[in-house]
């Protein structure tokens, strides 16, 4: 196993003893800014402005996202929005934010429908590993939490949102426990708190390396006890409006029966998560298969603005080998526990607990300057020295604290207790998103948003453990706001879409979906070749889309010849 890297692995092992207690050098201040400028993918210039919507002409978007915003709706031009289903609150998205909101609406007397493109809980939440931040430790406070996240976010954070997040941390953890979440504890019963990249004190609570799974399985089970109606495999493909700018419902694509379903709602909560499956600039992703930026497209068509559209988080430790785990997350908590990031020569070139963007950029620099390791399939990476943990924290630490990681790699014959892991940045999180206020209200009346689909809270770089807190806090705040401000039922039209389409048709190169042009939201990863069937009922459900037009992951390790 991994004979091709034997020489480099020997160097990592040879330098291990000397590296104990000596983390790599800190990269801070202007040096960090220069590094980001030169190596972080956000600064690669692979972006452009868009010609339609609230941000038209003003902001730069990644090329992949710009193409979606300028693509046609999959809803046929002659489609009439006749209401099939009436509800009070329509929640779109079955991850942590949507389910938290649904739970907070229990007992309100409102009819709540939660719809999700995949199954309930299939989301980025379930894949989160390392933990959730809350200011519960010695010497900690919500202010300190704020200061850490604000510096990490380069001061781009919305201070109001961030203050709410940090002040709500302890209560949110209490709420999760009340739903049935078990967090790791010390022998004395206090929470076991780990540091994370950029935390100035240990602040991250965890359930081993399955924190998101623990939260999601518990919230999912709690939701199944509630009266919330759940529609799985229903993808939102368009919002409806009242003709005067208020969002009043949605058009859903029922994947099983291949039909379009029009829903009328008095309030809508957008909780569709992120966009890692756009695989910006060809990076692999740690995201679930539904993370295709659908919510950005839907809300943008209703006049909502997108904050920091060109800011994405490339998680420093994405898997590289074996091929089956390329892009998959290796939790940051493993670095909090002492695993160092080292190059081909076994040199720790950067502090392993640097902010994520800085660490990712440092890894990209190391690899581009030839100090990385190349796999037989052509991927490159640097080492995450996991055996160091066994040395400093005691044998068996990995197995007891990171059972997920150990199990995942054991399938392929790799034991992280013995063998360091290759890592390379993986597209992990959408820092920017739909603009919201402290109650999740978007710029479009009738539409709230929560979780990864929103922007502003995390500035231009998110800290570990702040996304699980984000969904728990802001999902429930949106629900509270909806309870207070829910409107009367209004007309369901597609006038907003018609207006947006009129602008689209003026863009050079635009092609209507019905004439074979691209449609958005994308719904599925390009690599899956799954497509929205444009003419419901006309195509057999087994039909696959065309071969992907663009390579989705360079280098394509399986490319022939």
């Amino acid at each position: 196993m991994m004979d091709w890297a034997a020489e480099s692995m020997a160097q990592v092992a040879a330098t291990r003893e000397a590296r104990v207690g000596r983390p790599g050098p800190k990269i801070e201040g202007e040096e960090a800014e220069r590094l980001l400028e030169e190596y972080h993918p956000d600064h690669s210039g692979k972006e452009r402005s868009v010609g339609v919507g609230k941000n038209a002409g003003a902001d730069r978007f990644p090329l992949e996202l710009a193409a979606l915003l300028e693509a046609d709706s999959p809803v046929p031009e002659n489609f009439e929005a006749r209401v099939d289903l009436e509800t009070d609150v329509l929640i779109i998205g079955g991850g942590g934010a949507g389910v938290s909101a649904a739970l907070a609406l229990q007992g309100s007397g409102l009819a709540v429908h939660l719809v999700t493109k995949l199954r309930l809980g299939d989301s980025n939440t379930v894949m989160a590993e390392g933990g959730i931040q809350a200011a519960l430790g010695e010497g900690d406070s919500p202010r300190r939490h704020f200061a850490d996240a604000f510096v990490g976010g380069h001061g781009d954070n919305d201070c109001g949102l961030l203050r709410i997040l940090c002040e709500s941390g302890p209560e949110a953890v209490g709420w999760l426990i009340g739903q049935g979440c078990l967090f790791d504890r010390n022998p004395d019963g206090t929470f076991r708190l780990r540091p994370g990249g950029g935390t100035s004190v240990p602040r991250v609570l965890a359930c081993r390396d399955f924190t998101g799974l623990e939260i999601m399985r518990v919230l999912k089970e709690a939701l199944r006890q509630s009266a919330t109606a759940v529609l799985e495999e229903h993808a939102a493909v368009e919002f409806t409006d009242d003709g005067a700018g208020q969002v009043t419902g949605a058009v859903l694509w029922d994947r099983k029966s291949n039909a379009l379903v029009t829903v009328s709602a008095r309030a809508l909560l957008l909780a569709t998560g992120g966009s890692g499956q756009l695989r910006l600039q060809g990076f692999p992703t740690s995201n679930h298969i539904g993370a295709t930026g659908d919510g950005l497209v839907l809300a943008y068509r209703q006049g909502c603005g997108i904050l920091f559209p060109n800011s994405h988080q490339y998680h420093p430790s994405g898997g590289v080998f074996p091929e089956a785990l390329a892009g998959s997350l290796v939790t940051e908590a493993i670095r909090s526990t002492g695993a160092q990031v080292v190059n081909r020569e076994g040199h720790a070139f950067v502090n392993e607990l640097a902010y994520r963007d800085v660490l990712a950029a440092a890894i990209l620099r190391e690899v581009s300057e030839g100090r990385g390791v190349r796999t037989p399939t052509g991927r490159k990476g640097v080492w995450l020295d996991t055996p160091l943990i066994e040395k400093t924290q005691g044998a068996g630490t990995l197995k007891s604290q990171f059972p997920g990681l150990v199990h995942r790699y054991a399938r392929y014959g790799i034991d992280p207790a013995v063998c360091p892991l290759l890592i390379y940045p993986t597209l992990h999180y959408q820092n920017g998103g739909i603009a919201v206020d402290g109650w999740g209200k978007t710029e479009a009346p009738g539409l709230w948003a929560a979780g990864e689909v929103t922007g502003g809270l995390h500035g231009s770089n998110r800290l570990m453990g702040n996304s699980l807190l984000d969904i728990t806090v802001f999902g429930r705040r949106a629900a509270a706001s909806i309870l207070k401000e829910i409107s009367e039922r209004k007309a369901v039209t597609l006038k907003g879409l018609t207006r947006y389409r009129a602008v689209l048709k003026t863009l050079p190169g635009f092609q209507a979906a019905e004439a074979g042009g691209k449609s958005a939201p994308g719904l599925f990863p390009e690599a899956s070749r799954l497509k929205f069937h444009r003419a419901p009922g006309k195509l057999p459900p087994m039909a696959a889309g065309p071969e992907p037009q663009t390579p989705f992951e360079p280098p394509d390790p399986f490319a022939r010849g």
Partner: protein
Amino acid sequence: MQSGTVRFKFSGEPIEARAGETLLGALWAAGRAEGLQAGCDGGVCGACTVTVRFDDGRPGGTDLACMRLVEAGMEVFPCPVEPVAAKAPACGPSPESLRAAYPTLDRCTQCRSCTTACPMDIPVMDSVLRMQRGEWQAVAEDFTTCIHCGLCRLVCEDKVQPHNMGLWVRRSMALAEETVPAAPDPGAGEWAWLLDGDREERLRRATEFRRDGKVPA
């Protein structure tokens, strides 16, 4: 080691895949994604459950298509598992409350199918026996890594619902735990200091505040 072409069958249809690919990756590449539900493609959501068997007598079983590599001669079928109704947890598990929620607990005939079916290598049957004995701490530990794919329940001929019980025990334990004290946290002065000034000034102040969590003297 990872080169060449592998032929396997999915739902009876032959598929050609590249060695080193996962079953899910191979189905996507072959344009057969519609044939198998998927969720996370990371081994934690439990959507892509399949049965695997071999035509040459090698042992088959159940697995996750997003984690299992293609092998020559494999015959793969989708094996979706529907969820069952959730049961309200108790405040602290007890033998009575668990049996009230899951009356089939004691029907286990110790056939070990559940343990064999688990893609996370949880000792499911042993844990069911631990539930019968009320060893809650150990049960909670066993199900720490459970992704709730439902395969253990699906294969149980005695209608025992191991993973549902595992989650029920964990939730019931959480409800009995000491929760987070609502400590008074005024801090108004610190907030005023942190939020004063423009972005550059706030960044400077936040950087200083991170040193010891206080407004510098």
